[in-house]
């Protein structure tokens, strides 16, 4: 008897959850379509709200929501109010495909912002092409997000620079500006971003006449880097390139200093985080970071203050790129003078806008922002100190 009651309860719970989940998003388009043309347009966002990249995802979604609130306050996109719909992908490519299918078919968004990870951005492109909705990726730096086998993907765009560029900037700055000749690389073999940066740093550093004296790998989740670092120490490099994320950077930097390695550290856009400074303030003193922007740029301060006031948290790096993605979308909509996804896509192909991370001129051939300068940042006394804008030729 008891069993049957429980079984019954379970089916009731399932049905209730079905109704609760199924009805909410469905209700809105119905009311909108009754008045003929919908008064509200929807913009989608996808990214990690759960999982190891949740910090960045939440910051992106907060930024996108904040931006569209401002745009709505000023009268919206072409006079229409914008509603932001954000879906979680928990960092998984299949989930990202599901989320995009839902956004494009059920919610009928005019464009999608995100995701921040390249793996998800590549996986969703077939859905975008089928449903003809453009997507602007935030921090997806893998070249294949927009171009595969020399062919540009019609509906994928991005606002960040790409891995080869970032690798080239790091290599160029280390070799030409800092004058280093011997570099070592420590990288995460199980991470796509880390593999990409390593590949291109190595290529360009050797082209510049430098020498890679050691190349050691670890895998995501490792906490002990001493075996690899000991080998690197033996090869006596002048600079160690560390293209991975802040948690591992903090651990490996501390361990490197413990082992008595005095070389300068260099890293990419996976570094900037308050956690890094908390965990490894002394170890990373004097390190260089290739970043998307200068955090202390006067033009950035308004956004930083507004975000802080609204969410009582400081902006993560992804927030700035989400900001630019929204700006780019706004510019494209105004240029197209239409809320049709295909018209927006056509406008995006030649869009240009002054973003918070620099001038963004989308190239028709690559759908990347071309000629965007990278910002070189040095760690001084636990602060991010801007050195110069640097672009690799």
């Amino acid at each position, binding site marked *: 008897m008891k069993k049957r009651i429980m079984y019954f309860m379970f089916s009731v719970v399932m049905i209730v959850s079905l109704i609760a989940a199924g009805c909410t998003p469905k209700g809105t388009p119905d009311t909108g379509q009754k008045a003929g043309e919908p008064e509200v347009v929807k913009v989608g966002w996808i990214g990690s709200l759960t999982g190891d990249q949740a910090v960045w995802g939440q910051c992106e979604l907060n930024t996108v929501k904040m931006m569209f609130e401002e745009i709505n306050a000023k009268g919206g996109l072409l006079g229409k109010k914008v509603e932001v719909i954000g879906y979680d992908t*928990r960092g998984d490519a299949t989930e990202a495909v599901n989320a995009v299918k839902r956004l494009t078919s059920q919610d009928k968004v005019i464009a999608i912002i995100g995701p921040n990870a390249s793996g998800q951005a590549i996986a969703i492109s077939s859905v975008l092409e089928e449903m003809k909705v453009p997507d602007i990726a935030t921090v997806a730096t893998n070249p294949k997000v927009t171009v595969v086998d020399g062919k540009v993907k019609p509906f994928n765009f991005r606002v960040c620079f790409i891995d080869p560029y970032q690798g080239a900037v790091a290599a160029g700055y280390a070799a030409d500006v800092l004058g280093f000749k011997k570099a070592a690389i420590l990288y995460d073999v199980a991470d796509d971003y880390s593999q990409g940066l390593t590949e291109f740093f190595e290529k360009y550093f050797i082209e510049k006449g430098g020498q890679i004296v050691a190349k050691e790998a670890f895998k995501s989740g490792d906490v002990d880097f001493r075996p690899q670092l000991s080998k690197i120490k033996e090869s006596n490099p002048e600079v160690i390139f560390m293209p991975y994320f802040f948690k591992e950077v903090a651990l490996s930097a501390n361990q490197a200093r413990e082992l008595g390695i005095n070389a300068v550290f260099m890293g990419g856009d996976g570094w900037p985080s308050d956690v890094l400074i908390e965990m490894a303030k002394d170890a990373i003193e004097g390190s260089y970071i290739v970043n998307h922007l200068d955090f202390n740029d006067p033009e950035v301060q308004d956004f930083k203050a507004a975000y802080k006031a609204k969410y009582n948290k400081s902006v993560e790096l992804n927030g700035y790129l989400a900001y630019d993605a929204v700006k780019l979308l706004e510019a494209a909509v105004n240029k197209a003078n239409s809320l049709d996804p295909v018209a927006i896509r056509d406008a995006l192909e030649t869009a240009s806008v002054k973003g918070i991370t620099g001038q963004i001129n989308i190239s028709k051939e690559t759908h990347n922002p071309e000629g965007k300068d990278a910002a070189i940042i040095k760690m001084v006394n636990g602060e991010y100190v801007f050195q110069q804008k640097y672009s690799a030729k």
Partner: protein
Amino acid sequence: MDWFYIQGILILAGINLLAVLGLSLLTGFTGLFSFGHAGFMAIGAYTTAIMSVKLHLPFIPSLMIGGLIAALVSLLIGKLTLNLKGDYFCIATLGLGEAIRLILDNVQYLGGARGWPGIPLKTTLLNVVIIDIIGIIILVNLIRSKHGRNMIAIREEEMASQIIGINVFRYKMISLMISAIYAGVAGGMLGHYLGFLQPKMFQIVKSTELTIIVIFGGLGSISGSVLGALVLTSLPEMLRTFAQWRLVVYGIAVIFIMISRPQGLMGGHEFSFHAVKKIISSMFYRKKQRGLGGR
């Protein structure tokens, strides 16, 4: 709900279902727990993609080769590990799954950790459903056969079945191999559904997800596995409105169901029209049943 979206979920559920069917044979009917089936999926996915992208074979033969290669690897692993008892086999499969993923991370020819884009999209709802139905029919017939009964005997009492003359090692091997074929074909379909492969997709989380579905659906029940795969693949999608609390709600729902039905949705039972009739009639005549001193 839009059909395009539902279709996507159904395809994904169908792909998961195929992998779960294989695992159901291994875990539910032979009593071996595996936490490495994502590894077999990865092998199947990459092999199928190599066949169709690099060697330009049609989809179905590619899938078959994908399944076969996964089976070959499983034979190799089975030979080494199936003599291990209970938990030790489980740990060995866990290691295998991670090892396969890390090897793929390093193979630059297949894109390495950065992934492999540009795989043709050939998985449709139609071929998923057809392959699933074929998979179910084969499995049902296998389990009803002498071989299936031998596997169940091994699950129930390994020692006793050895004494009555069942070749335990051989049947465990067959079970592992068939489940690897299912997982391999499922992997191949996943790759051709997403058009993109990345070793990160076959993490241990994927393996545990498959095992959870089997247990959730009920050990030793094919209809339970089918139901489990459908419910647990679509549940996270239905919960999208909860945003960052989605997976918490998902977890709570699974825990609640497992508490209320510890044997899983269908634990040990199969779906049949006869049973449905019995349940319905027992619901209507509950009073009578109680009077007769039923359950």
